[in-house]
């Protein structure tokens, strides 16, 4: 019964680092969480070993501060070499594990990707919900399929 959280983003580019920051917080709480700049093939080894993987990422196309979660599936025809996108990474992990973990992505709309740390006001305001949403996706023995749904 294991869950792996993978926070994506650059913590020196303001809101872009929101996923990575959330992963750091979850790791400090003792959860199995990793903060990375980008999805690297090496992560597939770790993903293949868990029951559920939760990606935490920033979304430039969404309204700032809005948190969403959704299931994601492995890519059918992934591309890429030393860097993959998330569905490509899942496709690789699915092969390594024969049957890959259940995968979720929790995203938050972002605004400011300028050089610097910390978040813009709407992202800072939504960060608590973002974290809660991520925490609720932990696989628990009693409720392994009852992940809470935010905003559809």
């Amino acid at each position: 019964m294991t869950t792996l959280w993978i926070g994506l983003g650059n913590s020196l580019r303001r809101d872009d680092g929101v996923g990575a920051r959330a992963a750091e917080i979850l790791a400090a709480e003792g959860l199995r969480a990793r903060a990375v700049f980008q999805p690297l093939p090496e992560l597939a080894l770790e993903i293949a070993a868990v029951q559920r993987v939760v990606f935490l990422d920033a979304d430039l196309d969404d309204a700032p501060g809005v948190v969403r979660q959704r299931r994601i599936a492995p890519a059918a025809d992934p591309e890429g070499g030393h860097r993959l996108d998330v569905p490509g990474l899942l496709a690789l992990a699915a092969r390594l594990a024969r049957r890959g973990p259940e995968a979720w992505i929790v995203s938050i709309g972002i605004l400011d990707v300028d050089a610097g740390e910390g978040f813009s006001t709407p992202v800072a305001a939504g960060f608590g919900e973002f974290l809660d949403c991520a925490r609720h996706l932990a696989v628990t023995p009693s409720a392994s399929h009852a992940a809470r749904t935010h905003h559809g």
Partner: protein
Amino acid sequence: MSVYTLEIDGREVGARPGETILAVAREHQIEIPTLCSLEGLSTVGACRLCLTEVEGASRLLPACTTAVAEGMRVRTQSERIARYRRGILELLFAERNHQCAVCVSNGHCDLQALATSLGMDHVRVPYRDPLLSVDASHERFALDHNRCVLCTRCVRVCDEIEGAHTWDVAGRGIGSWIVSDLADPWGESSSCTGCGKCVQVCPTGALFEKGKAIGEMTKRTAFVPMLQHMRGRRR
């Protein structure tokens, strides 16, 4: 001896006349951020990071230079204060070249620690990117003007504790800079004793021991009040 009663952050505290808000706050474990202030040195109120709200005063007052008064009501934390403190740090970072990631004091720097603790996570004013030099003419130490925040701790420790007064500030305003003797290279200074106290009290990587690689320069400042105490006793 009379005792004043005042209020800091809603707490009633006692103080001796002549004490500063900062001193009283510290006696009562109330944290006020500082940069230019250092225990054992005189107070100059240069950095303004210790700004506090005093009831009845229209502007913010520095805790390090404002003397307590009977019935004073002081706030050390508020949204306004936080905004000012962050703004001050942003200006300090924008004024010279503070590349933390490749600095000898990375991870051991007062300025960097303040930015973290006060939530100054980005700089909204344009960086000035001035072209500044490093004075590495001294045999054991170097002064990197890129990292200097003009807090004058070096000037004061050299004058007040070591008694050499090698360091001083030349120029005005934004053109101010730290000089040794008559703006001579440090290594040619006739007054410098080479004691290294200035290096130890410098809050950033501006003054450092030569030979240190990135992140290797750590500082010790506990000796300053001890020396001040011992010298005071001898007089």
